């Protein structure tokens, strides 16, 4: 256990703490069928479950790593310009704003036998991240006059948005009393995608050093900036609900991915688990437009020639020549070729220790020590989450406490440390009201009374029908 903790802490220290699609409240919580979506090798309870269509999994989160709405727009009498100047100064190009929304449309799971459990369904996802374009915010806010010799870097522009539907089928297999493994095949259907990633080059204003005939050399150096889009035309003109439905049902660009996961139940108390989600890519092949600008140019200004003109002759079109020079040096092309984009792969790791009496409703004792591990009333543990984002792997570390209060009520609380906050407390309540399974989860609870002061907010909700094992 000490080594597991050491490993998790080391991972956390080595990578950027962050936030994204982390569902630390649901991960590893056997009582919620959707925990299998976070770990296909998780523990599957019951004989079957059916998610209430459109209500079985609703997840919304959003946040910013560097500031809250309050930091931006507090009604505290300060001049907004002063506040924005402070944010531009304090934020770095690694700070980001993110928003994720998921909606399960269909979600079902059924047991083939004691060892095998299948899951299948469709969910829709919107995922957006933009990094703070510090250099370009600085240029827009202050201008370049006080930034001579400073290269405004294009790699500060980095953003990605994806709207897709996902069709999935998963198998959860209990190998023995200790090991459960699982995998899921995903078919991605991208409805709309846009991104501006891996931009390069810079723009610098400096005094001419012989490389410009004018006062400044305004140097666009090795610029390579692109915006990739697919599916935009689906949203042009009159978009009907049937258009959206058809785009959501295999009407978009397709991709394949897998989730894998495993759980190791060391004994009745200790459990270790891990999963890797969304190992896959989408091939954007239809309705693709990539806008790309690349090149080098030193902007000198407009050069006059003072030609000897005859009566009726006009001066040369200097401005048009100037524009043409720029366009020739830094052409903006529209490309229609297909491109492939990897999904943001995610990883979950967890270690937990159960203690106390058996959970209400569980068998009283696993006396022979040979049967399945049985649930204990309380669990504590640690979870690690990582997601591959355009600029870095972002991570979060959570400590959690699970308490099975009643036969039909389970609570899990988490303390999560990520880029948004080191004091993110979350709580999920899961209740089985007969066959109806309901869960409600929220985090950043300390700032819930005033979300403006929160760096992030997340809520998950779902209703399922669960059939117990015979």
């Amino acid at each position, binding site marked *: 256990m000490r080594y597991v903790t050491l490993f998790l802490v080391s991972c956390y220290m080595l990578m950027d703490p962050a936030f994204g699609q982390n569902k630390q409240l649901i991960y590893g919580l056997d009582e919620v069928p959707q925990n299998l979506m976070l770990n296909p090798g998780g523990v599957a309870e019951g004989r079957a479950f059916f998610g209430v269509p459109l209500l079985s999994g609703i997840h919304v989160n959003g946040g910013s790593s560097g500031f809250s*709405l*309050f930091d*931006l*727009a*507090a*009604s*505290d009498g300060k001049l*907004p*310009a002063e506040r*924005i100047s402070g944010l531009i100064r304090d934020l770095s190009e690694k700070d980001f704003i993110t928003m994720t929304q998921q909606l399960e449309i269909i979600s079902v799971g059924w047991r083939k036998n004691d060892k095998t459990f299948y899951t299948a369904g469709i969910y829709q996802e919107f995922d957006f991240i933009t990094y703070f374009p510090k250099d370009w915010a600085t*240029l*827009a*806010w*202050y*201008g*370049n*006059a*006080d930034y*001579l010799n400073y290269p405004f870097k294009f790699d500060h522009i980095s953003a990605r948005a994806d709207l897709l539907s996902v069709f999935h089928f998963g198998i959860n297999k209990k190998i023995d009393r200790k090991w459960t493994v699982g995998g899921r095949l995903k078919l991605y259907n991208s409805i709309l995608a846009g991104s501006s990633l891996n931009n390069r080059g810079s723009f610098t*204003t400096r005094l001419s050093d012989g490389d*410009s*005939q*004018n*006062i*400044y050399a*305004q140097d666009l150096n090795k610029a390579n900036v692109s915006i990739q889009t697919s599916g935009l035309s689906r949203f042009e003109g009159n978009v009907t609900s049937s258009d959206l439905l058809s785009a959501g049902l295999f009407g978009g660009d397709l991709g394949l991915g897998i989730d894998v996961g495993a759980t190791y139940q060391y004994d009745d108390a200790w459990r270790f688990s891990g999963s890797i989600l969304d190992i896959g890519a989408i091939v954007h092949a239809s309705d693709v437009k990539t806008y790309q600008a690349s090149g080098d140019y030193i*902007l000198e*200004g*407009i*050069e*006059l*020639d*003072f*030609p*000897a*003109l*005859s*009566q009726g002759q006009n*001066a040369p*079109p*200097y*401005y*048009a020549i100037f524009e043409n020079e720029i366009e020739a040096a830094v052409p903006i092309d529209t490309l229609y070729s297909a491109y492939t984009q990897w999904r943001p792969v995610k990883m979950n790791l967890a270690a937990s220790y159960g203690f106390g009496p058996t959970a209400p409703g569980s068998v009283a004792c696993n006396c022979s020590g040979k049967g399945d591990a049985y649930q204990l009333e309380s669990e504590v543990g640690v979870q690690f989450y990582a997601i591959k984002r355009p600029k870095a792997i972002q991570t979060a570390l959570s400590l959690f406490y699970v308490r099975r*209060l*009643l036969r039909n*009520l389970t*609570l899990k609380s988490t303390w999560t440390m990520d880029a948004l906050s080191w004091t993110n407390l979350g*709580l999920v*309540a899961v*209740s089985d009201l007969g066959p109806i399974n309901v869960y409600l989860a*929220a985090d950043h*609870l300390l700032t*819930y*009374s*005033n*979300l*403006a*002061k929160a760096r992030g*907010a997340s*809520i998950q909700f779902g209703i399922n029908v669960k059939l117990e094992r015979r």
Partner: protein
Amino acid sequence: MKQFISHFIGVLLLILSVSSCVKDTDFDQFDQTLLTPVVDLNLIFWEVQAPSFNDTSGNLPLGFVRDTTEIRFLDDPDTQESVVRADFLFEFENTSDADYDLVIDFVSLSGQVTYTLQTTIEAGTLNTPWQQTILDEIMAPEVNAITQAGLIAISATAQGTPPDQGNLKMKSKVRFYLEISGQ
């Protein structure tokens, strides 16, 4: 007791989800926010060889040169409104042995001169060029005369006999002070 706890937590979650709100913020304040970037741009540069002042092949009189260019980057009405001050820096270098009367006209697309800068560039030599810098700071409301212009016309007149060697050079840049409101 456990039932009480479960009800309590259920109600707490419900209250949290219903009562969460955004307070102590005022987004209307951004209507008044002014971005005030100060932007430096290269403007126009040229070099006229002294013999050009002796060239009478065109329709211009001896000792006189003139040229014009569009400056379309000020066409946009939002940009025009945003400029509250413009500082022009002109650097001249004269290696010919003539003084020049130099006129820089800002001209609207309809042909009306909206702003004029005049100066005299003194004579220099090939070995000791005459160098002169002019900083013209134009504040509001006079700066409107600049932003309304669509053309810059530059003319130089050699005083006395036009020179036959050396040249006259100009470099220039402009520093625009912008104020952009949030509305």
